[in-house]
C-alpha cells in the first residue's frame, strides 16, 4: 500500500543539522566508551583534567575578558577545583566495574546514560564545562557542551583542550564535543533529539524549564537567593570575614553567593562594623536607595551589573567608596517581593536585615526563599545546634552551610559536600535532583539478582569484569583491508599511564588547591 505524501517544506535554521550530526557522532562514541575498563577511564579522566588545570589561568583570564564579569583569580581557583580538584575528590571511586553484593546476591553493573547534553552558564563558564566533562568521562558518557553564547569562545577552547587530551589518552573520537555557535533553535534541536540521553542544564530558569519540557530525561537546577542567618552566639569576627569573602568571591556571580544577611539585633551593629573591617562598605539610607535604583532600575535587575566589582557599581550610583571595597552592604527593613534588594543579586551587593530574635530570622529566611531560590541553599552562623537544626528544618533548601561562606560551602569546596558546579534544587526547586550533581547522577545500574531462596547459591563473581579497553585509536583509522599490516607505521597513540610531567603537574596543582583554599579560609 502506498500513498503520495507531501511533506511541508521544513526550513531549519543554519546550525541545526550540524547539531544533529554532533549527536549522531556522540552516539557512536558513547557506545564505544561504554565498554572501557576502569584503568583506561581513569587515565582519560586524568588527562582531560590536567589539560584544563594546566591552562586554568589562561581560561580564567579569557572568561573574564569574554563575558566581562567575575574575578580572574577566583576563576582560576574554580577551574582547578572543577578539573583536577574533582578528580582528586573521587579518586579511588569506581563508576565502571561491577559491584558485588554477596549477602544480597546482587551484582550491579554500571550503565552510562550515553549522550549527555550539558548546558553551561556564562557566570561560571569554564569551571562548569570542565566539571560536566569530568563527570561524563568518569561515568563513560559522551558529552556535548552547549555553552552560554556570551562565553562560547573560551568554553570552546577549554572543551577542545580537554577533548584532545582525552582522545590522546585513548578516549573514543568525539567523546567530547562543543557547540561553537549556540542558538535557541539549535539548543532546542539538541534537547529534543531522541538520541540525547540526558540533559544537564545549568543556567537561567528558562533554559532549565525548557530542558524539562524537552521530553528527554533532564537534570536541571533552579536559581538561588541565599539567606544567611547570624545569631548572637556566632563568632562575629570570623563570621564577618567568611561572609564578606564569600560574597566577594568571583564578584558574586554564583548562585551560591549570599543574598541577604539576617542579623539578630543584639549583634547587628557589631557585625556591620566587622563587615567594614573586612572590606565591605555599609551604605547609608540614601546611598542604599541610589544603589537600589542603579542595580534594579524600574525594579528589574540590570544585567550590566552582573559580576562587576563593588567600586564600579558604587560609581555608577554616584557613590564614592574606598578603593579596596569588595562588597556593598545594603540594609533594608522589609523582605517582600516588591523590595528589589530581597531578590537574587548577581553582583557584590549584600542585603542586610535586622531581626529581634533568631526565631524571627527563620521567618525572614523563608520569606526570602518565597521570592526565589527554593530548594537551593542557605547559610547560618551560630554556635547553637538547636537553632541550626530548627533553621535547617524550616527553610525550604536542600543544603545549609554552617559557619562557612555559602559560595564555596554549598558547592562542597569548603565543606564535605560533593564538590559541584551544579546544585540540585530538588522538588522544591522543580528539579529531579536534590543533591549536588555528582558522577552517580549520570549512571544507571543493571542489577543482576539471584533467587532469594537460600538454596540457590550465587557463585563468586569476583574478578569477572565485562569491560576491556581497545588498544588502538577508537575508531580505528579505515585502512584498506589488504594494508592493515602497515598500521604500525602510523603514529601510535600515546598510552603510557601518566607521564612524569603530568604527575608532577598534578602534584603542583594539588598543592595549589590546598594553598588557595587555605588562603581563602584565613582571609
Amino acid at each position: 500500500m502506498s500513498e503520495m505524501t507531501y511533506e511541508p517544506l521544513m526550513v531549519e535554521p543554519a546550525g541545526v543539522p550540524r547539531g544533529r550530526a554532533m549527536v549522531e557522532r556522540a552516539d557512536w562514541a558513547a557506545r564505544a566508551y561504554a565498554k572501557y575498563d576502569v584503568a583506561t577511564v581513569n587515565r582519560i579522566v586524568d588527562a582531560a583534567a590536567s589539560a584544563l588545570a594546566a591552562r586554568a589561568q589562561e581560561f580564567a583570564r579569557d572568561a573574564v575578558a569574554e563575558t566581562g564579569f567575575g574575578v580572574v583569580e577566583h576563576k582560576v581557583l574554580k577551574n582547578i577545583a572543577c578539573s583536577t580538584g574533582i578528580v582528586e575528590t573521587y579518586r579511588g571511586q569506581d563508576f565502571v566495574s561491577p559491584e558485588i553484593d554477596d549477602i544480597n546476591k546482587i551484582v550491579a553493573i554500571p550503565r552510562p546514560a550515553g549522550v549527555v547534553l550539558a548546558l553551561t552558564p556564562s557566570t561560571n563558564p569554564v569551571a562548569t564545562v570542565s566539571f560536566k566533562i569530568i563527570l561524563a568521562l568518569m561515568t563513560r558518557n559522551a558529552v556535548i557542551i552547549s555553552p552560554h553564547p556570551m562565553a562560547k569562545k573560551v568554553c570552546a577552547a577549554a572543551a577542545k583542550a580537554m577533548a584532545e587530551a582525552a582522545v590522546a589518552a585513548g578516549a573514543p573520537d568525539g567523546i567530547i564535543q562543543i557547540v561553537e555557535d549556540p542558538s535557541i533553535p539549535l539548543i532546542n534541536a539538541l534537547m529534543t533529539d531522541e538520541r540525547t540521553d540526558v540533559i544537564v542544564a545549568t543556567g537561567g530558569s528558562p533554559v532549565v524549564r525548557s530542558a524539562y519540557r524537552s521530553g528527554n530525561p533532564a537534570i536541571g537546577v533552579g536559581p538561588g537567593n541565599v539567606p544567611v542567618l547570624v545569631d548572637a552566639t556566632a563568632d562575629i569576627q570570623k563570621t564577618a570575614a567568611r561572609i564578606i569573602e564569600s560574597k566577594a568571591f568571583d564578584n558574586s556571580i554564583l548562585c551560591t553567593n549570599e543574598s541577604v544577611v539576617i542579623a539578630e539585633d543584639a549583634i547587628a551593629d557589631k557585625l556591620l562594623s566587622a563587615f567594614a573591617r573586612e572590606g565591605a562598605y555599609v551604605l547609608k539610607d540614601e546611598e542604599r536607595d541610589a544603589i537600589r535604583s542603579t542595580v534594579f532600575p524600574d525594579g528589574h535587575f540590570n544585567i550590566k551589573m552582573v559580576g562587576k566589582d563593588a567600586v564600579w557599581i558604587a560609581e555608577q550610583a554616584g557613590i564614592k567608596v574606598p578603593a579596596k571595597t569588595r562588597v556593598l552592604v545594603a540594609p533594608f527593613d522589609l523582605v517582600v517581593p516588591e523590595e528589589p534588594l530581597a531578590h537574587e543579586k548577581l553582583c557584590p551587593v549584600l542585603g542586610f536585615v535586622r531581626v529581634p530574635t533568631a526565631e524571627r530570622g527563620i521567618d525572614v529566611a523563608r520569606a526570602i526563599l518565597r521570592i526565589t531560590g527554593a530548594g537551593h541553599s542557605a547559610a547560618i552562623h551560630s554556635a547553637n545546634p538547636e537553632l541550626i537544626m530548627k533553621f535547617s528544618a524550616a527553610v525550604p533548601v536542600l543544603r545549609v552551610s554552617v559557619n562557612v561562606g555559602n559560595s564555596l560551602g554549598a558547592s562542597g569546596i569548603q565543606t564535605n559536600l560533593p564538590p559541584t558546579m551544579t546544585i540540585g534544587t530538588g522538588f522544591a526547586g522543580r528539579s529531579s535532583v536534590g543533591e549536588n550533581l555528582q558522577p552517580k547522577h549520570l549512571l544507571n545500574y543493571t542489577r543482576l539478582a539471584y533467587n532469594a531462596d537460600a538454596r540457590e547459591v550465587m557463585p563468586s563473581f569476583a574478578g569477572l569484569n565485562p569491560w576491556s579497553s581497545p588498544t588502538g585509536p577508537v575508531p580505528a583509522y579505515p585502512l584498506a583491508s589488504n594494508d592493515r599490516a602497515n598500521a604500525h607505521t602510523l603514529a601510535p597513540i600515546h598510552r603510557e599511564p601518566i607521564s612524569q610531567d603530568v604527575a608532577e603537574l598534578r602534584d603542583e596543582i594539588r598543592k595549589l588547591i590546598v594553598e588557595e583554599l587555605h588562603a581563602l579560609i584565613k582571609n
Partner: protein
Amino acid sequence: MTQEHVAAPEFDYGLFSYDSKEQMLDKSKEFWNPGKTQFWIDSGVPLVIDRREEYFIYDMSGKRLIDAHLNGGTYNLGHRNPEVVQAVTMAMQHFDIGNHHFPSLARTALAEALIKTAPTGLSKVIYGSGGGEAIDIALKTARHATQKRKIVSIVKAYHGHTGLAVGTGDDRFSKLFLSDRPEEFPHVPFNDLEAMEDALRGRDVAAVIMETIPATYGFPLPNPGYLEAVKVLCEKYDALYIADEVQTGLMRTGELWGITKHGITPDILVTGKGISGGLYPIAAVLATEKAAGWLNEDGFGHISTFGGAELGCIAALKTLEICSREETRSMVHYIADYVAGRLAAIQETYPDWFVGIRQNGVILGLEFAHPQGAKYVMRHLYENGVWAIFSTLDPRVLQYKPGILLKPEVAEEMLDRTEIAIGKAFAEIRNERKSA
C-alpha cells in the same frame, strides 16, 4: 438513483497509478525494459522501489529493505536526505537548470567549493549531467592536453556507457553496440605494474584512468603501492592520471576523496553519483591548470545543456558540505570499524564459504566460495531485508556499501540480517551440492 463506486487504484502516485504490483511489472516489460525487468524477477529480487527515506527503501509490497547498495553511492547520504531536499526545494524558488552558455551563479559556487576541498593542484571544474559524460569529458581533456589518443584502463574496468567511457570498460557493453575500439583503449590487468609499464612505454598514451577501487569488478583492492607506482609511471611516460572517484569519493573511504589516502594528486578527478545527493543529477570533472588548457583555448569545446544544472549544483554544494563535516568523517570511521568487526566474526563462523573481505572505509566487497556466490547472498539478503548487489563483472563478490550517516542501531540491524542471509545462502549452496 444508484451510484457507481469505482475502486480507487491501490497504488496512486498522483500523476499515475497502478492497480497492483503485477500490473506494474507487466507495464514495465511492455513499455520500458523487458530484459532488465525480467532479470530481477528471475533473480528472486522482484523489487520495485516505492517509499524511501534514510537508508530504507520499501518495495511496492511494503517490504522494507536496508539499502547497502546505495546505487553505487548515489544515496551515500541516505534517500531524500532532509538537508539536501531542503536545499534543492528552496533553490527551486529561484533557480532552474540554468543556461550553459553563460557564467552561472551556482556552477561557479560549486566549482569553488569543489576546488577548495579537492587534492591540491586541481584548479578547474567542468560539469557533466552524469558520470559517463564526466568520464568522456575527462578523456577528451586528457587527449587535448597531451595531444595523444590512447587511454589505458584496467581489464574489467567500468567507467560508464557513453561514447568514450564505454571503450575503457568490459567488452560486454561496448561490443553490444559495436563500440569497442581496442586500438585506442588498451586494457591491462589490475595490480600488474609490468603490464602497465608496457602499455605506457611507447609514450603514446594520453591518460591512465583508474577507479581508486574498481567497483563493478567487486572492489578488488589495489596492492599497497600499486596506484602510487602507476602515478609515477604516468609521470615517467607523459600520461595523465585520471582518478575515477565516482564510487570512492565523498568520504566513503573515510577521507573525502579516496585517492588522497594514497598521497596521489591526480591530473584529473571525476565525481558523480553521490555528488547529486541522490536528488538532482550532476557530475563533475576536476582538472589541474595544465590539464584543463582547452578551457582557455575554446571555452565552448564541450557543451552540455544539463551539465552542471544549477539545481544539481545546489544539491552538490549541500552534499559536499555534509560529507566534509568533521562529524561525518568521524561517523564513517566508526561505521567502517563496526562493520569490519562484525563481518570478521561472521567470517569465523563460515570460513569456507565467506572467504574474503575487501574493505576500505564503507566500501566493501564480500567474497564467497562459489562462482555465482554473491547472487545467492543477494537473494537471501533481499529476503531478510537488506538490499546489496552482486558485482556484475565478478559475481563471486557482493558489493556491500553502507551509508556514511548510518545510525548505530541500523548498522547493528543490518549486520544481524546479513549474518542470517550469509548462513542461509551457504545452506542453500550445500543442499544444491548434496542433491547434485
